[in-house]
């Protein structure tokens, strides 16, 4: 309890906690869950965009998409490294993803169905992710904070590229505009859900906020996202995806309809449109890759042994 108070004092003073520092078990556990989940999201997040890489319509768009997906894999790598400083290995985390013990962001359980989705994912999904992540650059755990600083820089680049891609669609042929509208309609509510249910309904929030693992309430961030995004949709000349969106002069914010949270919990339970296929794809990659990992490891050991023998 004394240690705990000192720990909280450090956090309150804005100090960073480093891996070798003492920390409460709950802090460690919550961080592992949060960072791991974030890492998994980057990995699984490759799939909906990977779905269109082979169909990218121009060489430049293919290059941009490849670079983005490559960045996501890179983010996964930083985040797994950050989680490893808390005493859990990447392989352990991966196993937990593959057998369903750990989650990834539910947004990736929605399908990408037309090329405009590649723009909408960058703009809306990465946009929403950034809302979550920017404050986390100031999170109390050092390695996490540093990972988020790198991640955020690249994510905002992706969000801008995504907006550019969907702008091209929204101002293109009627068919392209239709794709853009369809993408926004499908992804709007799932994007709002990315911030999680209202904090009133969330059990872990208060403690996480005290520990500076969570920096803002879900509703604050969601409102910020809506306020930023609605004018962009209008700028694109697209219809708003929700009849409930209206500027509220009094609040100085946009009103909007609450997403269907039963769908949210359904998707978390495993019943999203793509949960099964996403996990199956990751499991297949892992299983098919076993011989590769084994082979490379065996070779590395042989080389190390040969080096020792030579010395």
């Amino acid at each position: 309890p004394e240690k705990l108070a000192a720990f909280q004092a450090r956090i309150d003073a804005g100090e960073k906690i480093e891996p070798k520092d003492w920390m409460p078990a709950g802090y460690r556990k919550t961080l592992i869950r949060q960072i791991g989940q974030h890492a998994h999201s980057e990995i699984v997040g490759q799939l909906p965009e990977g779905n269109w890489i082979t169909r990218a319509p121009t060489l430049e768009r293919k290059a941009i998409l490849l670079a983005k997906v490559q960045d996501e894999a890179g983010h996964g790598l930083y985040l797994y490294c950050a989680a490893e400083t808390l005493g859990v290995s990447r392989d352990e985390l991966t196993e937990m993803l593959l057998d369903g013990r750990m989650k990834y962001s539910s947004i990736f359980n929605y399908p990408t169905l037309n090329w405009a989705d590649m723009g909408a994912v960058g703009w809306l999904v990465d946009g929403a992710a950034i809302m979550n992540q920017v404050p986390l650059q100031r999170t109390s755990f050092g390695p996490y904070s540093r990972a988020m600083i790198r991640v955020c820089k690249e994510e905002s680049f992706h969000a801008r590229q995504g907006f550019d891609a969907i702008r091209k669609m929204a101002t293109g042929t009627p068919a392209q505009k239709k794709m853009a509208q369809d993408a926004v309609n499908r992804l709007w509510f799932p994007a709002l859900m990315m911030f999680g249910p209202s904090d009133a309904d969330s059990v872990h929030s208060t403690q996480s906020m005290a520990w500076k693992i969570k920096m803002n309430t879900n509703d604050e961030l969601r409102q910020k996202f809506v306020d930023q995004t609605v004018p962009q949709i209008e700028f694109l000349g697209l219809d708003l995806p929700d009849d409930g969106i209206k500027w509220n002069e009094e609040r100085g914010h946009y009103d909007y309809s609450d997403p269907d949270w039963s769908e949210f919990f359904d998707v978390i339970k495993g019943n999203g449109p793509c949960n099964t296929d996403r996990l199956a794809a990751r499991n297949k990659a892992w299983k098919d890759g076993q011989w590769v990992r084994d082979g490379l490891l065996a070779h590395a050991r042989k080389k190390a042994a040969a080096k020792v023998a030579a010395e």
Partner: protein
Amino acid sequence: MAAPLTDNEALFQFLLRMGDNTLILGHRVSEWCGHAPVLEEDIALANTALDLIGQTQMWLGLAGEVQGEGKSADDLAFLRDVWDFRNLLLVEVPNEDFGRTLMRQFLFDAWHSIQLGHLMKSSDDRIAAIAAKTSKEVTYHLERSADTVVGLGDGTAQSHDFMQTALDYLWPYVGEMFTSDPVDAAMVKAGIAPDPASLRADYDVLIKRVLTEATLTIPDSDFAHKGGRTGAMHTEHLGHLLTHMQWLQRAYPGASW
């Protein structure tokens, strides 16, 4: 049956060969996205694909200029059908598994790096410039694919088998890199590019060194499939690849993306 090649037509064909190789291989490699055996490989494969697509923009961009019909690199990539492609058959074979993918990459990188070394001295400045720009990337690709081939060839018995199977399957597609035809003769005459056959000795030395270290056996056959770089006979695989690659451009002609 065909009329004799003009120098410009030959140059155009040569540039298609360079650009179609990187285009099709880049596409194949990009199919791995999100499905690699380990995160570092996801990153490396995406990086390789990205480099190859970038190189394609340069080669096919120049091809379009040389052709002089106002076609962009995208037009050439997305609006030709199978018979107009000029890539090696090697780069269009399916990925199958990580072993075949990496072995194919290595067999191509080895040729590619030697070829670019010569092209840096091309009499055509534009080609020399592209070669200079891309050869650093390709040197890195070769380093990486060679290391992986060695690591897996000389890894476990199982990984060795995968790699030997991959090599046996791909070997008949190697010889095509060194066949020469009137296009090549025109390139040699103009000092633009080397005779493909002249690269074979260096290539053999290079791959023999790596494959020996990988404890793999080079098949005892010099049979070679042909038809990709002339366009006379591609594999059935290329047509399937194009259905994906060209889908949007074909389905929505004239749109801008």
